[in-house]
């Protein structure tokens, strides 16, 4: 690899794009597994899947990769945001940026911070409980039941839903942006990518948001 690729602007874009796409993939898997709760079988299938995920060394290793991906994405985004802020120390008195770009394209770091805040809460709810406490070791307490418990609290449900809105906007820009960053822009395919991105960014957060709502309104029991 060339010396210093990642110290140049385009190298940094490259990392953002790669890690972003990686997280996009993760969400598909995560969403897929969580979707099992909608089977409404009292969490049987879901628990089995979660059990497999939690107690399988391959998955534990992959998890480390996932966390590295998150960290890289977040760290790089912080570096980029700070550098970009510095590139214009004196701003405009009047700005009509809505005329030339979307607000969420300009607010990726803000949306990212919201997602990060969600993530901290989220990990505390499930992951820490599932990995680092003996909460479930007794056997009669399952991850499914934990979810049910957590989502009894309306405040948590609201937080989750708002976070999913932030995620949707983050992805609406991020999905197609990642392809552009990786240099993939094509007269024929880019419009397709953009459409897929839009569908993805609405569908995935929507399904995620359905879960707390479904538990709260006791659609699934």
């Amino acid at each position, binding site marked *: *690899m*060339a*010396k210093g*690729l990642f110290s*140049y*602007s*385009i*190298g*940094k*874009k*490259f990392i*953002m794009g790669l890690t972003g796409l990686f997280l996009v993939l993760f969400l598909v898997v995560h969403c897929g597994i969580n979707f099992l709760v909608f089977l409404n079988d009292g969490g049987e299938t879901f628990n089995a899947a979660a059990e497999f995920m939690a107690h399988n060394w391959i998955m534990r290793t992959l998890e480390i990769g996932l966390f590295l991906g998150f960290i890289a994405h977040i760290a790089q985004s912080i570096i*980029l945001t700070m*550098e*970009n802020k*510095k*590139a*214009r*120390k*004196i*701003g*405009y*008195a*009047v*700005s*009509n*940026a809505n*005329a*030339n*770009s*979307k607000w969420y*394209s*300009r607010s*990726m770091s803000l949306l990212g911070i919201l997602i990060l805040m969600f993530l901290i809460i989220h990990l505390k709810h499930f992951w820490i409980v599932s990995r680092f406490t003996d909460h479930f070791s007794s056997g009669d307490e399952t991850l499914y039941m934990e979810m049910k418990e957590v989502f009894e609290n309306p405040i948590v449900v609201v937080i989750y839903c708002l976070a999913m809105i932030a995620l949707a906007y983050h992805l609406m*820009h991020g999905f*197609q*942006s990642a*392809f*552009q*960053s*990786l*240099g*993939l*822009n094509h*007269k024929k395919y880019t419009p397709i990518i953009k459409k897929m991105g839009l569908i993805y960014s609405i569908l995935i957060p929507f399904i995620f948001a359905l879960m707390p709502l479904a538990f709260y309104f006791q659609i699934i029991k």
Partner: protein
Amino acid sequence: MKITLKVWRQKNKNDQGKFETYQLNEISEDMSFLEMFDVLNEQLINENKEPIAFDHDCREGICGMCSMYINGRPHGPLRGVTTCQLHMRSFKDGDTIVVEPWRANAFPVIKDLAVDRTQFDRVMQAGGFVSVNTGSAQDANALLVPKDDADKAFAAAACIGCGACVASCKNASAMLFVSAKISQFALLPQGQAEKKQRVLDMVSQMDEEGFGNCTNTGACEAECPKNISLENIARMNREYLCASLSSEK
């Protein structure tokens, strides 16, 4: 028509600068935006005040010299148009118009609305050329260029170097400008020999000049008076990655 102008005034690079408000009462809607400034300057001179300094030359939308940030947008409210080609009929009687210089660390203000854009020249010096000495060229028709490529290369080469892309980008990134030049040569057979070194050198110089990074916001494309496409930035990214990964240095 009557127009109220709020214009950024700054004596020199080190001055703090502030907005001044001016009232113009007899503006014709056939005037170009810069002609309105001519009228204002004439008025200021008659009042024994300092006229406003601003850059301009061709007044035909091709030299890239004019550069005003008008009501929050570079080159004003219209798309695909430079400041000099903007006419007063795009505004309404009684409007207040705020005019600022391009803002970017890489483009320091020289005076009032004029900024220093020599950074672009230095990026060009780093590799924005084909190394061919006068006299060593072969016959022009010995090199065939598919019409499509020639048209695309031309569309990229139409950049006038005005800097509106930098001015509009929330990150003050110059990627649209740089990618337009890199694309022009990447698309043509003449540019192939130096293609790797060119993109590495130009990007490195671009970074050194203090422009921000691109986060694909797309404002630059929307505000570019010559409609330079974002496709060029993707092409530059691609060229850069290939060059960087295969480079032996």
